[in-house]
């Protein structure tokens, strides 16, 4: 464990012993590359009603891969994960509240 990482006693059982190697990172980058190519394919090929759900799922997988592996959330204390997904949850709540507000009081029309 490096000096920068959280000691095991900070969150018992949260940190994994296994730490990724450069080879792991390259594998993850390759997966991200393929997922992005799949996203872009929705622009060139017709997926009908599946396109939007597929894009949302691909986006979520890419998000989780970058946060989990590149930002080391999989191997670090769960407190940091809560900060990240707490902020994300609040942002989603903000979006829903704004939509509800605009549903009752339409956005200014130009």
């Amino acid at each position, binding site marked *: 464990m490096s000096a920068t990482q959280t000691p095991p006693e900070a969150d018992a059982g949260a940190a994994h012993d296994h730490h990724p190697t450069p080879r792991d990172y390259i594998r993850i980058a390759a997966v991200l590359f393929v997922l992005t190519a799949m996203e872009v394919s929705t622009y060139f090929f017709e997926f009908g009603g599946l396109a939007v759900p597929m894009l949302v799922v691909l986006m979520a997988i890419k998000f989780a891969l*970058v946060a989990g592996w590149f930002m080391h959330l999989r191997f670090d204390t769960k407190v940091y994960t809560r900060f990240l997904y707490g902020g994300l949850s609040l942002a989603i709540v903000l979006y829903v509240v704004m939509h509800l507000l605009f549903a009752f009081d339409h956005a200014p029309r*130009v």
Partner: protein
Amino acid sequence: MTAGVHDTTLGLDHRKLAMWTFLGSEFLFFGAFIAGYLLYLDETAAGPGVEIFDIPFTSISSFVLLMSSLTMVLAHNAHVHGDMRRMRLWILATAGQGMVFLGGQVYEFSVFVREGLVLTESPFASSFFVLTGFHGAHVFIGILLLMSLYSLSLTGKVKASQPLKTEMIGLYWHFVDIIWVVIFTVVYLIPEIMA
């Protein structure tokens, strides 16, 4: 823990905790702009709308930014193992990819302006430029941080025993990448497909 490491009452390094708190708050910052963009998506004031987007071009920019996250994490890995020469190499590669992404954004904006999509054209244009412009500003700050790290490691002010410094800048850089993952799908791809 050594005396040199600053802990919070949670037993975590307070600098890293501060960075995660900052990144959590940044979600609200970008969440507000993304929500505003989606709400004003159709408010084009008879001007250009999402059809103006050049998805193949933006896709290449997205690939570049995504791969910059790989070089960033490799820089951190090299620093953890005390390989400062390799760490600097990956830092330069990350900053270079960030510059390519920013150059692409400047080019994209200039094309949009030539085609009549300017900041004050419509609510759609304003929300688009503010959102993607702020993201670009974050990338620019990230490049400055990376170049500072590079210079400081060259002059010996960032030592092999201080990988937290690379990790902190890496967290910021990956966050900027993660936000682009969302922007690319929600701002570019989904509206373009639904148009």
